[in-house]
């Protein structure tokens, strides 16, 4: 049940990424290239996704618990710190260099393009390396 529902959620997300044009780095980079070959399409992607989620969450979060789990697991962090801003700034630079964000690159694997496989491999290495450093730092803090 959990596996099937996760697959269906992923499928809807993947179809959305695919038909919206988010899946295409040329289109994503053009959204940011206001001074050049600008393509404003992504405003509509973000707008459609945000409004739908905003309205949907109002209804869903009113319930006592989710359908197949015991409780809601919402992010609890509240600090706006250097880690959040610095990490997001670095993410934006990488996004501007390659044209892929994680949520677009995973569905793009379905296109079978070797460049996407390369991007996702590099992304996973980056994720893994950053987690490793974070774990080491946490360990050092715990020792002190």
């Amino acid at each position, binding site marked *: 049940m959990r596996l099937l529902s996760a697959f269906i959620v992923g499928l809807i997300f993947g179809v959305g990424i695919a038909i919206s044009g988010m899946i295409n780095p040329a289109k994503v980079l053009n959204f940011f290239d206001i001074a050049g070959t600008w393509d404003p399409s992504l405003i509509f992607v973000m707008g*459609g996704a945000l*409004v739908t989620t905003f309205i949907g969450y109002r209804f869903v979060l009113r319930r006592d618990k989710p359908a197949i789990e015991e409780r809601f697991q919402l992010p609890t962090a509240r600090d706006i710190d250097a880690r959040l801003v610095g990490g997001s700034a670095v993410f934006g630079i990488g996004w501007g260099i390659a044209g892929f964000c994680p*949520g677009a690159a995973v569905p793009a694997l379905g296109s079978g393009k070797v460049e996407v496989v390369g991007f996702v491999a590099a992304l996973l290495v980056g994720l893994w390396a950053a987690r490793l450093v974070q774990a080491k730092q946490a360990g050092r803090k715990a020792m002190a």
Partner: protein
Amino acid sequence: MTGFETEFTPLMSLAGGVLIGASAVLLMFLQGRVMGATGILSGLVTGTAPGDKGWRAAMVAGMIAGPLLVLAVTGQMPAVDVPVSWPMIAVGGFIVGIGVTYGSGCTSGHGVCGNARLSPRSMVATLTFMITCGITVYVIRHVMGG
């Protein structure tokens, strides 16, 4: 490295955006979680609680099947044009991996779900990565390249 024109697609982009939002709402309804590609991937890469990897793998499989379903229905694979070089793909991917880990999210987690929850953290994160992405594209295309 300058880009080439892409077609303005407001209706398909809006429809796709609504589907992305619908998947986020459905995940919250079913599992009570925010839909963040960063969180789903890092849970797969790093060791998490046992039994936690299965649904993440299933979701990734569903995501990858998305464009294939579009191909099956419309007879056409959605365009994926990568207008950057291999070194940029590798460096960009690695940097994105570092950034989303420290920033605790990306376009889906912060940009869609966090902002829909009116989280100040997500609003700051989204504004930050949109600005640095815009500056990066400007510098690469109009300052360095051409």
